[in-house]
């Protein structure tokens, strides 16, 4: 099985009087096991010529669900305008949050609700990838 690692580093010398310096690495494994995830979409890049509303980037119908350890990576790679955010949503108008240009997220996904993006401006660019397990554990 594949070995996939995700590492996060959070650093700040001045957010508080105690400098922040956190680094964590996880192996992406199937739910409840030590076996690596076996599916990956690749990293997709989309440059939307027009604003998008509820554009699905991860369709629940295409994935195993519930007892799964899928992970979704999304980045707003728009460079021109600091106000060109994208909204990360789950099906049913569940707003998770906004990614401003340069921001990224890495979220666990149960595969039970579509993951969607809405953009407010034209010419917004995003990257995303889905790491998943082919069969629920």
């Amino acid at each position, binding site marked *: 099985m594949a*070995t996939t690692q995700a590492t996060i580093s959070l650093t700040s010398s001045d*957010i508080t009087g105690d400098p922040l310096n956190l680094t*964590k690495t996880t192996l992406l494994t199937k739910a409840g096991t030590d076996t690596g*995830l076996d599916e990956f979409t690749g990293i997709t890049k989309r440059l939307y010529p027009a604003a998008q509303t509820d554009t699905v980037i991860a369709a629940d119908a295409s994935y195993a669900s519930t007892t799964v350890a899928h992970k979704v990576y999304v980045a707003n790679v728009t460079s021109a305008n600091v106000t060109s955010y994208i909204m990360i949503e789950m099906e049913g108008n569940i707003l998770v949050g906004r990614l401003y240009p340069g921001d990224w997220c890495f979220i666990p996904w149960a595969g039970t609700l579509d993951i969607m993006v809405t953009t407010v401006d034209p010419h917004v660019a995003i990257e995303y990838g889905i790491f998943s397990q082919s069969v629920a554990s």
Partner: protein
Amino acid sequence: MATITASLTLTSPDLTTDSLNLSTSATFTKAGTSTGLTSCTGVARKTTTATTQYVLFDGDAFGNGAHKVYIKNTSSTAAEYVTIEINSEQMGKLYAGDWCLFPWEANADTNDIKLAPSVSTTFTVEYALFYE
């Protein structure tokens, strides 16, 4: 203003025949500006001994903004997980060692972030909120 940097590295030599090696970095800024976020909870831990769902962050306690949430399951037992809900809908589960980072729109008291441990034995999550 503070400078907070979040870096991500995703690597795999064998997930596909094209090895994965993605690195990206973000500086946390206030919504629509180049000004750094000014507040954080600190990196904290919460230990539970029940499977009862609890509110990690109350949407009503924070205004709108470019908030970021970090959560990690510190367990080393593969079967132990924590379920993350937002607005009472399941986002996903973090299994042992897994972490996540996501933006949060704390726009209403309904948009709480809630956690539910899978076990009633000692179970610890690590978390932090960076906010405006």
